[in-house]
Structures are given as C-alpha cells and as structure tokens.
C-alpha cells in the first residue's frame, strides 16, 4: 500500500468519527480558567469545540499542562467549565454519570475491596443481583487476563494489573463512553505496549466510544481513529488528524507500515514547529 499524504488538518468542531456517525459527545466553546492566588489567572482551556462520533476512538494529544486532562474531566462531569457547554447525546453534562466511565492514570481502585469486589462494585450499585454481578465480573476479568486474581487485593498487584482491574471495573457498569486519562502513563514501556495491544483487542469487540488522553504520539496514532492535537498556554486545539490505518491493527504490521511512521513523524514535526517540543517520544 502506498504512502498517502496526511490531509490538511480538519478544523475543530467538524464531526469526528470514522463513519461520520451520530455525535455522542459535543464540546461547545468550552473554556476553563483556574483562579490562582497570585498574578493572573491560569487559562487551562480556551474556547474548545469538538464533536466525537459514536464508536470513535479519539485521542487528545498534547504536552503536559495543555489542559487535555481537564477537558476529559469536563466531559466526565467531574469539573464544570468556566464557560461553554459539554453535551452527552445532546444533553448538557451537569455531573458524573454511569454513561461515561473514567479510567485514571492513578488507577483509583478501592484498596479495601478484592479484585472481584472492585469489578462488582458498579453493577451492584446499579442493583444487579450479586450472583449475576459476580459472573459478569469474572467474565470481564478473564477478558483483561486476570483470571486467578479474583481474591487478590489491589496492593498485591503490579501497576499493569491494577490498570487492567480498573478497566474491567469501568466496563462492568456499561458506560457508553470510556474516558481514559493517560491510563498507561504510570507503567513501564513493556507493560504499556502490552496494555495498548489488549485495549485495542477489547475495543474491537464492541467499538465503544473512547476519549483517550495521552502525551505519547505513538500511542495516539496506534490506537486512534482521530488525534486531537492540543497546544498549551492557553490550551487550545491546534489540529485534528484522521488516522487512516486499517483495523484491526496489529503492532507488528503497523511498525512496518510507512503510513504509521509517517503519521508519527508528521505529528512530531508539527509539535516541534510550535515550540511545544516537550513531548517525550
């Protein structure tokens, strides 16, 4: 297959999603200003507009301090924007909800619950019968490769395993959108690669909408249909890039695909040109 040039970046606000599907998340002129005790206020996000189509895997890529996590928290309903509005399926987001499932870099597992207890927590909260919740949790744990660890406490697991539990715990209550906040950022390179592979395998099964925050160009290109490039001070969208690579993706194949390499080089070049060159590659 030939090397196709990257299309000039689409403007923000244009519907995203490979099949131009119905929008599931709409971010409309969102700004976030944090009051600081001294000097001027910190503008974390400046006039962000973005639409995410149903079933799309969209990455938000940017240097640290560009407000990409804040944007995710706004969609999650954990943080209210200073101005503008975020909508989920047309309804304004006013707080957290089971339709949007977060997965954090810090895992945020409940340490007093066993692995099984963590994954069952959401379904039980939704009123599912314990026997059914347990069966569901066991299925999900098998899917993330943790069969045999059901009775373990989080403290007994490695970072990669904790993140697998966190993913299973979030999937268990059936959110329509996964909000992943640098989920593999705290893991070593090898574990990170394995979790990326497994995440794609899991995603291929039901193609849930994913909003994925990362500062790794390779990770964004490898996983996503769309990469939203952000710049900082103030945080704004500078480019939205379609990643037109075949799915299902396999790392061994992609690494030999010149298009994959080209996306990475082009994106890195764009960040370099803007002076936002603090992306670890």
């Amino acid at each position: 297959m030939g090397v196709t040039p990257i299309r000039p970046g689409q403007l923000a606000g244009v519907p995203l999603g490979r099949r131009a599907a119905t929008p599931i998340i709409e971010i409309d002129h969102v700004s976030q200003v944090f009051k600081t005790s001294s000097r001027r206020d910190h503008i974390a996000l400046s006039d962000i507009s973005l639409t995410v189509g149903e079933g799309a895997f969209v990455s938000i890529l940017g240097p640290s301090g560009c407000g990409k996590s804040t944007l995710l928290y706004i969609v999650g309903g954990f943080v209210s924007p200073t101005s503008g509005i975020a909508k989920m399926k047309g309804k304004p987001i006013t707080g957290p909800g089971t339709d949007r499932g977060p997965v954090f870099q810090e895992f945020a597992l409940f340490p007093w619950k066993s692995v099984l207890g963590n994954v069952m927590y959401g379904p039980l909260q939704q009123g599912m019968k314990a026997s059914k919740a347990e069966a569901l949790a066991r299925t999900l744990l098998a899917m993330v490769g943790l069969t045999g660890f059901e009775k373990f406490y989080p403290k007994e697991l490695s970072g990669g395993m904790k993140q697998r539990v966190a993913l299973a715990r979030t999937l268990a209550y059936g959110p329509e959108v996964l909000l992943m906040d640098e989920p593999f950022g705290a893991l070593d390179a090898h574990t990170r690669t394995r979790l990326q592979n497994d995440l794609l395998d899991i995603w291929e099964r039901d193609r849930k909408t994913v909003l994925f925050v990362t500062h790794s160009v390779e990770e964004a290109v490898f996983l996503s249909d769309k990469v939203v490039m952000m710049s900082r001070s103030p945080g704004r969208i500078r480019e939205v890039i379609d990643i037109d690579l075949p799915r299902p993706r396999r790392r061994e194949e992609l690494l030999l695909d010149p298009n994959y390499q080209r996306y990475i080089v082009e994106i890195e070049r764009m960040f370099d040109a803007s002076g936002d060159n603090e992306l670890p590659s």
Partner: protein
Amino acid sequence: MNGMLKPLAPVLACCGLLLAWQLASLGLKNDSFPTALESLRAIPPILTDKESLINILASLRRMAVGFSLALAFSIPLGLLMGRSRATAAFFNPLLMLIYPVPKAALMPIIMLWLGVGDVSKTLVIFLGVSLPVIYHSFEGAKAVEEKMLWSGAAMGLSPSERLLRIVLPAALPEILTGCRTGLVLALITMVTSEMIARQSGAGNILFNALDMGQYDTVFAMIIIVGAMGICLDAAFEIVRRWLVRWSEPQFDMPLSFS
C-alpha cells in the same frame, strides 16, 4: 533480633523490670516501696474480692461507654471536616482551643454540674478520646484520593454514599490509628476521673489503699491497670490489623507487640 527471641522480648523486658524493682526495693527498705513479689502477691486477693471486681468492672464499663460514644461522634465529624471546607472552618478553631486543655482539669466543673457518678466520668473519657479520633479521621478523609471519589461518582454513588462507602473505608487505616491512641487515653482519663471523683472504680481502690497505707495493694493496682492497658491495646491491634489487612504497609503502626 533472631526469630526465636522476638516474641519473648516483651516477656524478658517484664522480667527485667520486676527484677530491678525487687532489688531496688530490698536495697531501699522503705515501707512505701514494697518489693515486686509482695506486690504481685497482693494481686490475687484483689481479683478474687467481689467488691474490687465490681469496681474494676464498673471502670471498664464506663471506659467502654465513653470510648464507644466518642467514636460514634468523632469519626463522622472528622470525616465531614475532611471533606467539607465549611465544616472544617467551623470546627477547627474550636478543637484547637479544646485540644491542649487536660480533660481531667474539667472534672471539677463537670462534677459540680453532673455529680460524681457515671455521667461525669464517662463524659471526661468521651472528651479525652474524641480529639485524637477527630483529628485522625479528619486527616484520613482529607487524604482520600479525589479520583477514587470520582470513580464512585461515575458509578452513581451520591455524595452521602461516597462519604459512607468510599471516604470511610479509605480513611479507615488513619481512623484506627486515632482510635488506638484514643483507647490508651480512655484508660488514662478513666483512672484520673476516678481519682478525682472518688466513689467507685479502679482508681478509687488505688487511692483508698494509699490512704490506708496498704502499699502492696497500691502497687498491685498499678500492675492491674497497666496490664489492662497492655491487653486492651494488644487486642485492639489484632482487630486493627484484621480490619486494614488490605492496606499498604505504610499504614502499619510503628508500635506493636508482635
């Protein structure tokens, strides 16, 4: 220390202490300083005397009531303070004011208002236990990871459910550290209150014996009260460890007997 010796260390320390006491007492030959053996021999009569047992049990009952009431009040308050700035802003100055006041110093006023009975003594124990428990619950609740609460919120937990089902268990290691301090303080305030309001209890036996010059009984009571403290603390430590068996080792107490 080698593995065989470690569990014996407290026993050895005990024996060493008793031996030093015995020798010091024999050397000094003072009436008000009975030997360790004489004091130990005075213990069985106390523990078989119905009157004394009733007194000691009454002490323990007041201590249990005061301690339980203090936990029931202080843990929710501390957790609320840790999660709500307004609550913390309101209670913090009050607690800072009460904190350095020795609770036993309030005893005369409390006795004046509430008499010398159970209510006064239980109240002093309650006050003594409350502050460390509030403080540790507050610190524990404050330190709960925000993302953990967000995860709960995304699962549909309401703010009050989050406080009960996330903040409380997440802060439990810290809360129990406060409770352990509180337990020792309960014992201290219990004995002190009985020395001031002399009507019943272990502290009362001790002071009555002192008045009558029964020094072996005085020392026997000190041993009994001390042993009660050590046993209660050790028992609490077993419960604590079981309750927080899931927690990271950094929450382990530096002081423990095992």
